[in-house]
Each structure stands twice: as structure tokens, then as C-alpha cells.
């Protein structure tokens, strides 16, 4: 049983570390990519997935119940806000005449 526990908790930590890794990847993309659109694309996707993994890891570690529903709600709200902001920024950039590969 201890082995199963240890396995369970290490999986929980795996989700958290993976989530942090996705955030790191998104931040690297923010710094390294050449133009607004590729940055937006990488950042939004990586951050949403990273947040999902972190919420999963937190629910995994802290117990399933009402708390985990709150984590799910947080993830969904962040997803909504992130996607809409990405859409609005991309739209504004497009209407300002920024093309792909133009530095922002």
C-alpha cells in the first residue's frame, strides 16, 4: 500500500512539474519568437495547458471533493479569459496592419 501511495503522490508531483514546464516553454516562446502571432499562439496554448496540469496536480494532491471542483472552475475561467484576450490582441494586431514576421 505504501508503494501505491508513493506512486500516487509522485504522479501528483509529475503533473505539477509538467505544468510548470509548460509555463516555462510558453515564457521562452514569448521571448524568442519573432512576431505577435506566433508569440500569442505559443503563449496561450502553453499557458492554458500548463494551468490545467497544475490544477490537476493540486486536486490530485489536496484531495478530491468540493475543492477540486473549484480548481476546475478556476481553470475554465482562465481558459475563457486567456482565449478571448488572445483573440482580441490578434485581431487588433491584424487591424493595425501587423503581418506575420513583423516585429511587434
Amino acid at each position: 500500500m505504501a508503494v501505491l501511495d508513493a506512486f500516487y503522490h509522485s504522479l501528483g508531483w509529475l503533473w505539477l512539474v509538467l505544468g510548470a514546464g509548460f509555463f516555462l516553454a510558453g515564457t521562452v516562446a514569448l521571448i524568442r519568437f519573432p512576431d505577435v502571432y506566433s508569440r500569442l499562439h505559443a503563449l496561450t496554448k502553453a499557458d492554458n495547458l500548463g494551468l490545467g496540469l497544475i490544477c490537476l496536480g493540486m486536486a490530485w494532491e489536496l484531495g478530491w471533493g468540493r475543492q477540486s471542483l473549484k480548481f476546475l472552475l478556476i481553470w475554465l475561467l482562465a481558459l475563457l479569459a486567456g482565449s478571448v484576450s488572445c483573440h482580441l490582441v490578434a485581431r487588433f494586431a491584424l487591424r493595425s496592419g501587423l503581418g506575420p514576421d513583423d516585429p511587434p
Partner: protein
Amino acid sequence: MTATLFDALLALLLVWLGWRTVVSTNLFNAVVLFVIFGLLMVLCWARLGAPDVALAEAAIGAGLTAALLLEAYRDLTGNDPHHVHDVEDSPLRWPLAALCGLLFLGLVATGWQLAPPTELGETVHARVAESGVENPVTAVLLNFRGYDTLLEVAVLMLALLGVWATNGPHATLGSRQTLDPDSALIDAMVRLLVPMAALVCSYLLWAGAHAPGGAFQAGAVLAGAGVLLHLAERLQPLGTASTSSRALVTVGLFVFVAVACYPLVYGGRLLAYPDGQTKALIFLVEAALTVSIAHSLTLMFSGGRAFQRGRR
């Protein structure tokens, strides 16, 4: 050990962000860095065991202040981050920097000797049960130090009056380039977020009695929804105040003053809530405050004196 490392990293990041906010030549960067500074402060409050303050800072400091600053940035510079307008910075930069460095050392030297005060905290915890609520911060805000909160609400109203007075009768409201409101995505977001914000606001108001929360946090969340509605053109600011707008802005202060004067009726003192009615009175005051704060903050953001239904 890791906790101290984390605290050290947080404190270092905070100071770095504060430094970059103040000295950035690019004004837009300075504003954005200040918003990030506010968000990191939320983490600090969580680390320091102050969840009420964290909630308030997240809603007000990182949310509303960010919206206000970005809007002012757009109005003052026309979106040109290096806009200078023949503004000369003080030629005394280096002497000033040296003086501020001395101030820092002086603050550290004085602060080192300060004995942390605990007496008031212990008194509060000993008598929380008398206050009618279980959350000690709410007890302090609305019962033990009710005067401070009463005057704070008056200050908020005065600031709103100040904004109205400076805007003047010829304020250029609505002459702004808003988000492109035809987007279906904005429609969906407004439909989802505004009811959710109302729900969160009610929850925070109710939970303020026994958990972190309260009138200010709830009012700020509702104000955030109001700002969203204004930006998505569901709410249109008007140049003249309507009766309902005046009522909403003043109801918080009036109810608080009425509740404060209520004990005078039967010979008590101001703000000395009668036993047995404290919880109900506190909740009444908090509900009125939430509505007032939300309406005042949204009006301050939009610059108008009332709202009407937008074109959409």
C-alpha cells in the same frame, strides 16, 4: 528552508519590479510592470497570511488600477510609449538617488528596532465573539474600527465627486476607440463572466462573516464586471447624474451612518451595535457598501455620472 528561499525570491522580484517601474524609459513598460508588481503583491499577502488583503489587492490593485492606468496611458500619450512632449526630468537625478539611498538606510535602521505590536491583535482575538462575526478582519473593519471604514467610504465618495468635478460638463465621454464590440467572442465572454462575477460577489459578501471576504472584495469584483460591461458597450456612460446613479453611490454611506446613529435612539453611543443584532446590522451595512463601491468604482473608470443601456 524552501519557504525562506521562496520569500527571498519574491521579495527580490518585488524590488526589481518596483525599480523597473520607476526607471523604465518606456512608459507603457512601466505601467505593465506596475500591474505585474500588483499581482506579485497578491502572492506576498498570501505568504504573509493575509487572505483578505490578497483578495482585495487582486481585485482592486491588480485589476481596477490596471484598467485605470492603461486607460489614462492611452489618453495621455496617444499610445506612443516614448512620448516625451518636451517633459524634462529633474537634473538633480543623482543627488536625489543618493538621498533616497540614505532614506533606505535610515528606514532599515529605524525599522530594525521596532518591536512588533501584538497587544491589539490579542485583544481582537479575545473579543471576536462579541462582534457578531467570526472573521477577525471583518470584525475589526465593521465593528471595532467602524469609524475608519465609515470615513473610508466617505473618502471614496469624495474621490468620485472629484473625478466628476474635474471631468466637467464637456467631458469627452464615448469618444474612445473601444474593443471592437462586434466580436461574437466578446459577446460570449460577457454573457459568461458577468453572471459569474455577480455570483462571486454575493459569495464573497456572505462569506466575509466567517471566511476571508467582505464588502470591499465583493464590491471590487462587481466593479470589474461593470468595467467589462462598459468596455463591451453594454453600458453607456452619461454626462448627467440620474437619481438612480446618485442613490447607488450614496446608499452605502447613508446606510452606514444610519446604522451608526441607530444606537443613539435609545441612549447608546455611535456605532455601539446592540447585542444580538450585530450580525444582521453588519450584513446590512456590508450589502449597501458592496453596491456603492461597485457603482462608484465603475463610474470612476468610465468618467461618466450615470449609466444607461448601451447600443448592444
